[in-house]
């Protein structure tokens, strides 16, 4: 009798822990120092990128990266710097997708994380920004 009740308690505890797992599923771990560092780096860079998104020089690509789509509006001498900026942003983004997958113990999720982000960057882009759809670049 005593054993049965103990079993019952244990089962309840297990169920709770299961619920805990399920709850954990509702959130991906993104509070790691590496992710914060990337987030901060990208946030700082955004001040430089935002006017370039607005002018159409840069667009949000389908693969979760930033692409140099029309540099015509940028002075020639600065196009190289913008290319460097884009490369740095894309390096951070690649690291971010890897880190999120890693932080959740699933490095193989990287491609899924990237795809999710690609969609969300595009969905949440401001009006006037260029985003890459299946048929090419479109302005939001």
């Amino acid at each position, binding site marked *: 009798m005593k054993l049965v009740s103990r079993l019952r308690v244990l089962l309840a505890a297990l169920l709770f822990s299961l619920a805990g797992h399920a709850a954990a599923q509702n*959130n991906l771990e993104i509070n790691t120092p590496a992710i914060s560092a990337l987030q901060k780096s990208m*946030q700082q860079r955004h001040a430089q990128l935002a006017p370039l998104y607005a002018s159409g020089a840069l667009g949000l690509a389908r693969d979760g990266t930033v692409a140099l789509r029309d540099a015509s509006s940028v002075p020639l001498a600065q196009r190289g710097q913008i290319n460097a900026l884009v490369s740095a942003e894309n390096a951070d983004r690649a690291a971010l997708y890897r880190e999120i997958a890693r932080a959740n113990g699933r490095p193989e*999720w990287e491609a899924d994380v990237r795809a*999710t982000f690609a969609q*969300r960057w595009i969905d*949440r882009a401001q009006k006037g920004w260029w985003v890459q759809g299946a048929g090419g670049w479109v302005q939001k």
Partner: protein
Amino acid sequence: MHSAPRLALCAMLLAITSACVTINIYFPAAAAEKAADRIIDEVWQLRDNAGQPARPEGAAQ
């Protein structure tokens, strides 16, 4: 006498915990979207933007 139920319990525990692990194999798309949105908010300063237009008014008062 005591050990048999304990073994059964252990087996069940194992079965359930291993089941727990398999749940995670599927990519949690909704959770990922939420995580992406939180990071995008931060990077693009979207939550602050909403508060920004109010600031000059506050400064004027």
